[in-house]
């Protein structure tokens, strides 16, 4: 048996040497992509290098990034969370309903809602043993339904506090971007320095080993999905503030796609055991820049979708070697 394993090990090693380029691509490709797009736009796009433009890009990328952080945790635990878009919709519905009590109460309610969805996801996965993709799929279907039941149609948000949050800034940095930065640091710190982070990675890498090592597998998994739900709810809150409207029909549709793309492009393997927070940030920025580039050069939105499709496939292809452990 060992002999076989060793042989397999050596085979893997040659595979790795052969694909040094793809390994490099997986590790740093996303940063290279961001730099290339920045350079391209600096040279070829008018008004790209303006503070205003950067502010716009930052505000737009913030919700994707925040959702992607939660997704990165889920993927790191060898799972996935497809319900994030619906949680955003649920969040916007709750915000609209509770805004009467002030934005902070609304935020709190939205976050509790997101946590509740995460709790259901996590319990289904950790206690009942449902595959993550199925459990979160069910919540994806049901969550948006619930959002629409709570708030059947678009509603304008006319709260001065929300308006300030959506369009204001601190020292030139828009609030949504600021929140995103804080959350990035928080999640990065959690993954690197906390017990929870270490346990999460061990569970994602080898669940039986983690269980036998006495790790609280179920609790950690539930926490992961609660985190993902809370982050998606915050993203929904920020998106509502920016759009000045609650639109549970369309808010967050395909968000799970963008988030997964950001995470995967950022080099976090789908097979779990690793969470790359920096890569996820770069992945989200890359997608945002790609979209912006295509739009600024008058290419229709359909091109954005095609480009995103290609980027996903390339990213996963590059990550392939690592995924096959």
């Amino acid at each position, binding site marked *: 048996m060992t*002999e076989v394993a060793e042989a397999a090990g*050596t085979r893997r090693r*040659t595979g790795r040497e052969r694909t040094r380029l793809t390994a490099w691509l997986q590790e740093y490709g996303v940063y290279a992509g961001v730099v290339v797009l920045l350079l391209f736009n600096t040279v070829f796009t008018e008004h790209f290098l303006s503070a205003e433009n950067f502010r716009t890009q930052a505000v737009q990328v913030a919700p994707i990034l925040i959702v992607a952080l939660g997704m990165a945790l889920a993927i790191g635990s060898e799972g996935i969370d497809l319900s994030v878009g619906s949680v955003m919709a649920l969040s916007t519905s709750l915000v609209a309903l509770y805004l009467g009590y002030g934005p902070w109460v609304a935020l709190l309610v939205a976050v509790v809602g997101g946590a509740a969805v995460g709790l259901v996801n996590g319990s289904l996965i950790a206690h009942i043993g449902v595959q993550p993709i199925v459990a979160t799929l069910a919540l994806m279907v049901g969550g948006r339904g619930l959002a629409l039941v709570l708030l059947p149609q678009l509603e304008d948000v006319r709260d001065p506090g929300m308006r300030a949050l959506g369009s204001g800034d601190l020292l030139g940095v828009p609030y949504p971007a600021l929140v995103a930065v804080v959350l990035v640091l928080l999640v990065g710190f959690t993954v690197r320095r906390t017990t929870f982070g*270490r346990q999460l990675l061990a569970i994602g890498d*080898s669940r039986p*080993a983690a*269980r*036998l*090592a006495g790790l609280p597998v179920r609790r950690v998994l539930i926490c992961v999905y609660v985190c993902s739900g809370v982050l998606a709810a915050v993203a929904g809150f920020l998106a509502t503030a920016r759009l000045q409207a609650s639109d549970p029909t369309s808010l967050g549709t395909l968000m799970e796609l963008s988030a997964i793309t950001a995470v995967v492009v950022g080099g976090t393997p789908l097979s779990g055991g690793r969470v790359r927070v920096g890569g996820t940030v770069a992945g989200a920025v890359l997608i945002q820049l790609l979209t912006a580039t295509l739009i600024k050069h008058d290419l229709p939105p359909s091109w954005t979708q095609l480009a995103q499709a290609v980027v996903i496939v390339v990213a996963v292809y590059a990550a392939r070697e690592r995924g096959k452990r």
Partner: protein
Amino acid sequence: MPATGALDVPEVPDTAQALSVHGLTKRFPGVLALDAVDFGVQAGEVHALIGENGAGKSTLIKVLTGVYQPDEGEVRHQGTPVAFGTPLAAQRAGISTIYQEVNLVPLMSVARNLHLGREPLGRFGLIDFSRMHREAAETLRAYGVHADVRGPLGELGVGAQQMVALARAVSFEARVVIMDEPTSSLEPREVETLFGVIRRLRDEGVAVVYVSHRLDELYAVCDTVTVLRDGRRVHTGPLAELERLRLVALMLGREMGEVRAEGTTKFGGEHEAASQEPVLRAEGLSVPHQLHGVSFSVRPGEVVGLGGLLGSGRTETVKAVAGALQASAGRVTVAGVPLRGGSPAAAIRAGVSLLPEDRKAEGIVPGLSVRENIALAMLPRLSRAGLVSEARIDALVGTFMERLRIKASSPRQKAGELSGGNQQKVLLARWLATEPKVLLLDEPTRGIDVGAKAEVQRLVDELAANGLGVVLISSDLEELIEGSDRVVVLRDGAVVGELAGDEVTEGALMEAIAAAAVQGPGDPAGREEAPRD
């Protein structure tokens, strides 16, 4: 020099060889897995292929079955040079392989598994299920399998599944059947059935290559033997003429005198712990279908071996003690305190740590670093308010890497990149870091190199000397006897005997196991058997 054992190969004309390799060399980076090996099996011959771990058996089989391509040399089938690109190509040419693990589809019915790929077709080219079921039932009867062929394969016992795999392989008009440790999950009675089938195949002119570590089986069923060591063939010849001890000497590459001497060296001293209260007491542990009221106790400083055949419930016993397997009845007390919770976490808190049998799947977290692997079970204790203290981890890891002499390029090297022996030491470090009262060791030296093996054995001895209670499981009879102060013998998930003090000898243990084995229940349907050990 035994390496020239090639000389005692009876020169057989090429055409009589059903399958042969000539000057076969296979390299992996840094490893010469096979070095100019000649090997051949004739029609109507059962040929044993043996060797220690790393001898090159698996590589040879993989070349024969088209999984690997040779670097040098050639494979000949019925005398004609062939190059099997895939296992499928080899199978089509009439070379079937039975793997250690059952390679069938558990959710599909028995009949469908048996016939997959050549289902009998009826009208309109559609599958004729009634014919398929009839034929399947008929075929399987010859293999002692009387299960419902319409039911899912997964509901059969592992032994019966293996028989289905064998029936499938043979019914492919196989001219060569390669069996890679086929008995590792079989009951003794099933082994007998298997041997019957093998003899029948031989009489029908099929060439059989039989790989096993169990010498009894080899002598029972094989005609010829080839011994590999370090990628080279060291002996080929009729098995009956080869004395057992000489066979072992060939495998180990030692002189017979050494082997005999080895038999008396001890790695474990006998520990006097007679009068102390047990640190671990298991009473009436039961797990449905797996354990039936297992009781034993371990005193501080004592090494208690669990003896028994594969599938006797040894692994299940330690897993149940460690909370990794849910016990339906019975209780475990650690130093007089009942263990509650039924989870590995609760057991670890109570001071019971399990070194699992399957190091790769259940022990090591391959993507994490050595230091993180060592600290894994201790994380909460090395943290304050949920924040990990790097300094405390470094101190802990430093101590254990030095104490256990773990060889890694740095504590930050990925554990998955270490050798088997070092991985095992990392796991031992993980468990010792939790300061256990009782250490459960399930096959602690399996698959690790000789040097590391000796170190692990010495460590176990040392730990016991320091007052730790140790439960030891080992398929290596010698290790079990030398290492244990007392051996509890299991069979079919129940305790059937206990040896202590001077009784702990190879002969007595074999007798205890064998005596119990005689009265095994006979259940032809191959019911859900006490799991793979």
